[in-house]
């Protein structure tokens, strides 16, 4: 009879201390605190939970958070792909600088991004004043939320697509051309399918990030009730009113949505890895 083994034998030292420390740390810092949400929710009645989670302002915030995050991820998919394409394939002066710049939304603190974007798109801001004559208002509208979420999601798509594009074998494009394909056909039938999984992953990551975004959004949104309140904001207001139960209920819904997304991303990536290994 073989007893199931936990760990394969190895002559390298230090497994148990390293493993024990990491699991302990992970448990204390991440798992135990996260469980607080589930446990807190367990103490509320289903009726109360439902009334919080389905109240008009909360529903409006879900619509805004999910809707804007989705749209922003979509916009980022299109333009992020474009940016990645141009960075990988076309020469232009200052490319290294531009390439480094793509990471800025990732490196810049969200509060800084928040006030900068508000300043830009307010009615008297650099861009706001250009759009005002057309009746387009960005700051303090859902459009402003969208702009902020595009900003912070940008690097995810670019950095997801870039390595795949860079590694793509150019010879298959030569092969397609030699077989008579036009440039568009080569792109749409040969190159794009290769990049599609990475694009999908980038989209999902941008979506997930935008969903929970707070700092860059709360300034430009203006937090107008029922109109430009994002879900994280509602959590914060409940907390400030010491309504822990309410805050937790809303948070639980967000958490579940985020975990589902994370799972989806991992599945897509697992699938992509399978394809690349068989090629």
């Amino acid at each position, binding site marked *: 009879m073989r007893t199931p083994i936990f760990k394969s034998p190895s002559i390298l030292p230090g497994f148990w201390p*390293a493993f024990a420390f990491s699991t302990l740390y992970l448990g204390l810092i991440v798992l135990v605190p996260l469980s607080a949400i589930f446990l807190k929710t367990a103490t509320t009645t289903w009726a109360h939970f439902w009334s919080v989670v389905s109240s008009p302002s909360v529903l409006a915030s879900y619509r805004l958070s999910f809707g804007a995050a989705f749209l922003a991820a979509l916009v980022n998919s299109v333009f992020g792909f474009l940016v990645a394409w141009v960075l990988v394939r076309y020469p232009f002066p200052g490319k290294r600088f531009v390439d480094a710049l793509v990471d800025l939304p990732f*490196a810049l603190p969200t509060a800084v991004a928040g006030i900068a974007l508000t300043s830009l798109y307010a009615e008297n801001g650099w861009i706001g004043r250009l759009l005002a004559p057309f009746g387009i208002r960005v700051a303090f509208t859902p459009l402003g939320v969208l702009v902020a979420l595009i900003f912070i999601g940008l690097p995810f798509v670019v950095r997801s697509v870039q390595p795949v594009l860079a590694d793509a074998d150019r010879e298959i494009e030569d092969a397609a051309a030699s077989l008579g394909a036009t440039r568009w056909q080569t792109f749409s039938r040969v190159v794009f399918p290769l990049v599609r999984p990475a694009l999908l992953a980038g989209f999902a990551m941008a979506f997930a990030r935008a969903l929970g975004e707070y700092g860059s959004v709360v300034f430009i949104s203006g937090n107008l009730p029922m109109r430009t309140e994002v879900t994280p904001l509602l959590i914060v207001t409940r907390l400030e009113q010491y309504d*822990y139960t309410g805050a937790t209920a809303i948070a639980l819904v967000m958490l579940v949505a985020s975990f589902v997304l994370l799972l989806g991303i991992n599945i897509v990536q697992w699938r992509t890895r399978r394809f690349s290994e068989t090629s």
Partner: protein
Amino acid sequence: MAHPAILGNQLSEPARDSRRDPAALRWSLTLAALAFLALFVALPLLVVFSQALQKGLAVYWAAIREPDALAAIRLTLLAAAIAVPLNLVFGLAAAWAIAKFQFRGKNVLITLIDLPFAVSPVIAGLIFVLMFGAQGWLGPWLGRRDLQIIFAVPGIVLATVFVTFPFVARELIPLMQAQGTEEEQAALVLGAGAWQLFRRITLPNVKWSLLYGAILCTARAMGEFGAVSVVSGHIRGQTNTMPLHVEILYNEYNFAAAFAVASLLALLALVTLAVKRILEWRIGQDRRDIAALAEAGEA
């Protein structure tokens, strides 16, 4: 979940490609991409510095040297100084266990490490309030001992540790996996002890990725807003980090001061990007060396 900020340096030689696409297409696509980046990335960066210096250098310096601002800077640095080393040790321990050994449930551990990325910063703050807040699990226990975690520095540190938790581990794990265990085995046969092994062989081999992870971790630690905002209590001069201080100034319509402090954070971001660039080049070297050594082994 693939980390987007790893190795963005994928600029391959475009010469052949540029011959494929007609010049008109190339340039219009390039301009469109650059316009998008200019609008969404460059402009916000510029407006920070422009607004910060709008009222002149004197006002700028005054805003930064103001006591509450200095307190915020100190607190930000403190939180980072505690969170980053802790997460470094964790990252090394987790990467050692995951990359060099085979055990059941490895994938579960890796997914769990990614968890903070899936959690909204506000929720990250919420969970610590639920645990340590006045009405939380440990609230009464802490209250009896007169210990403050929420609305005090320890809470800020905890929230910072949570959100910056994965960075170092995620940089180290793939690299250490790719490097394999042969060098460590060779060192063991030559008589090295466990710490000698780690210090002389393993650590030097990952030093650039370690630094890179530490940089990312530090930048995020100093810039975190949502999570810290929830646990901090916003007490001026005491529990405000730099991002929170920016928020307060902005809400008081003190724009020049808000942007002044924000500009420090923006500078930090730029330095982070520059260091990242240099390290990416170095890490690229390491990976090329690994590939070259592997190729030589298969020649």
